[in-house]
């Protein structure tokens, strides 16, 4: 079927089989391989992207369901050389090791920060329930999400 997607501000017209998942379109047709696949039961969160600004596990959404919507992936966050505050925070806090969970973590974290302005550590830990990381033990991820949330706030008011 024909679908129209705007991905990272670029409009695409695609012809894909009905049962194609959003993650397959992103990784396959659009070669945006920053979005990862870590499971087959919708539980690891490696595939999280934003659809119309809200975080979505792209392995649970048909590409057709995103028809006409705006999709943002990890590749679309940085503004040229300048990183998104959440990306910056992940680097500064050593919140990644192998990097495989990282794109999904960052996309989930941004949504979390946008939804609850006064984010606490406990809320971050709960909010990341759908994202599994096997490397970091989460401590630095939690730190990064809090730092990134502050960074986003500062960027919004400046």
């Amino acid at each position, binding site marked *: 079927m024909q679908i129209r997607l705007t991905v990272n501000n670029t409009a695409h017209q695609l012809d894909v089989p009905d049962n194609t998942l959003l993650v397959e379109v992103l990784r396959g047709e659009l070669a945006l391989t920053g979005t*990862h696949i870590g*499971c087959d039961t919708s539980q690891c969160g*490696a595939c999280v992207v934003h659809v119309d600004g809200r975080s979505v596990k792209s392995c649970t959404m048909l590409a057709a369901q995103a028809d006409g919507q705006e999709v943002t992936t*990890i590749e679309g966050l940085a503004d040229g050389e300048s990183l998104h505050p959440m990306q910056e925070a992940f680097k500064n806090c050593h919140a*990644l090791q192998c990097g495989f969970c*990282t794109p999904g973590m960052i996309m989930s974290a941004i949504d979390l920060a946008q939804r609850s302005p006064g984010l606490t550590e406990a809320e*971050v830990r709960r909010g990341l329930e759908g994202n599994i990381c096997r490397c970091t*033990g989460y401590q630095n991820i*939690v730190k990064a999400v809090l730092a990134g949330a502050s960074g986003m706030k500062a960027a919004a008011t400046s």
Partner: protein
Amino acid sequence: MATEENTGIGASVLRKEDRRFITGVGRYTDDIQVSGQTYAAFARSLWARARIDKLDTGVAAAMPGVIGVLTGAEMAADGLGGLPCGWLVKSKDGSDMQQPEHPPLAHTHLNFVGDAFAIVVADTEEHAQGAARALEQSVEVTELTPVVSLADATQSAPIHEALTSNVCYDWEIGDKAACKAGFAVADRVVEVELSNNRLIPNAMEPRAAIAEYSTGTDELTIHTTSQNPHLVRLILAAFVQLAPEHKLRVIAPDVGGGFGSKIFVYSEEVSVAWAAKKLRRPVRWTATRSESFLTDAHGRDHLTKAKLALSSEGKFLAMQVATKANLGAYLSTFASSVPTYLYGTLMAGQYATPAIHVEVQGTFTNTCPVDAYRGAGRPEATFVVERLVEMAARQLRADPAELRRVNFIKPDQFPYQTPVALVYDTGNYEASLSQALQHADYAGFAARQRAAEGRGKLRGIGLSCYIEACGLAPSQLAMNLGAGVGLWESAEIRVNPTGSVVVFTGSHSHGQGHETTFAQVVSSTLGVPFDQVEVVHGDTGRLDFGLGTYGSRSIAVGGSALIRASEKIIAKGKRIAAHLLQAGIDEIDFQDGVFSVQASNQSVTFAEVAFAAYIPNNVPTDEVEPGLAEKAFYDPENFTYPAGTHICEVEVDPETGKIDIIQFVAVDDFGEVINPMIVEGQVHGGLTQGIGQALFERGIYDDNGQLITGSYMDYCMPRADDLPNYVVDTTVTPCTHNPLGVKGCGEAGAIGAPAAVVNAVTHATGMKDISMPLHPEKVWRALQRKRRAA
């Protein structure tokens, strides 16, 4: 946080590799696209044990999009060899271990659920999967009775017809008679029966492979998720005999975690490469998570009886351990060494126990092969030692910290020969214990316990003083003990004419951050700016042979090789500088990137020397060869022995059995530390896997050999809100035998944590023992039983 200026050894430099990962442009195997690529899927055993009677591939081959269906029988007919086990362990009676055939694709017998028997190649993944499922449905088999339970396996009929029993080896280490004598004079004997739960590694990136065969050059290139691409190439060439070594190139690009599971050479990667060569088409395969659960080599899975003899003063006199270790259906690449030389040899722990005897029966069952998983043998050993010691303290009504202290090997006893073969080079166990007790406010525990009681909670504190043997390994020693490969590491440093440096290392980074730490080491040693040092790894086509990353060996062995190569660069640089400065070679000093003539103001920079090496205007090339590149192969003299104390404090809710980790302190002695930020991150990750083992994770097979915990719905992974913030600190007793004084840090957390958690929970609840994982229901039931009994 690191500053821009300080990028040397000991600085928490932010990681070079991060930028590509946080912007989504990392390059993992599955991200790679190849023109003309085809997709593979595997037909797998649905049975734990069965004989293949008939496999007709006709229907599957005719399905839409199918390019080829290749079976185990065809693979055997092509003369491919089996997957070898790289460590020959001998039994007590001197006989070699029993080794079952392990064809990459099964062709006569299926031995565990998930055992692959055919590879289907098709134009899409969907088509390949469809045909593979059809084969699974159509293969005709005779089901055989599986052997699943580890406890019963040694007595059951052999699962492999060619073997005499399910015992792979019956191994021992230590002095049995001395041990017996220790027990004979003991004032008290503490006994325990423990299980060490089976774990499923779950690196977040599933295994994957893409193989391309070039007809013109007869070269086979494989991109794959490996911790040691050279080992893969060696095994494919020398054992599987897929292609000669010089026609094979194995590339492990960005790899999304390994934890041991990506050391091994598996059926799937071999089959994909074989299919690419046979079909003359690029073939790709990426495991689904379900396949990872079924087939990534599992970890642990021991049943152990152990006892400790103590004197009336609480001195350890002797220790006796008997373990049944599950090896699964086949011997995975290093499976045999894990419950023996990486386990029995660690039973001294941090203690001066004079007599130790360990017996291990490696056992075959119809389950996924079991091999090294983060810690590999050492977590199992620590669990035995530290549970025994804790129980001893309880029985003696002694302070667990004090009992440990009096039995420690003291700093003046190093080098220390243990009764189980290892010689610890150095250590200071008292130092890490004291520091950990302080961080944990051990003295204030009683008050916290009372306060918890007031809130209806049971509070407990548990210690674990672990040791590990890392930096695998002195080649000669390892090979004397049965290793099939040397365990040295290689390094090459190429200095470019403009003075920037490319470092080639045989170590492999799949999350450890070598691009940063190795650059710190070389930048410090050569005085070259940090951002002008590039680290290259993971490609057999670009670097010398390397042994890869496992056993916390990268910095201790790979880093030491870098130092050796740097020394050669400096030595040659001095010869060039001597010509440029018209001085004698003995008059040249090198420091901070500058070659200078002693007692003069004459000097040249490293970059100037590099330039002169390639454009040898004033350097006679008959005396000094042009160019500036050096290689080194470093073979360690001994293992390294990181050690430390982990302290866990928990509260248990008696109404629900729920366990809250209130505090977790880890004080580790890793020797010198190159990048404290990265080391801390490694500890966090290790602790989480250790806590995962203690509280959440267990791979379970039912009586028919079906994996019950085959997805994230049934296998409980630690999540962010299950865990506390860790308190992590280090003490430093430098390793005595490598140039950096480093010991390695990758596995410590997973080794120390399980015993600390279980000791804390048994302390809180007053239970003698409880098996991992400590699920709330299990804890609640045990508390109910205890209450009824009281």
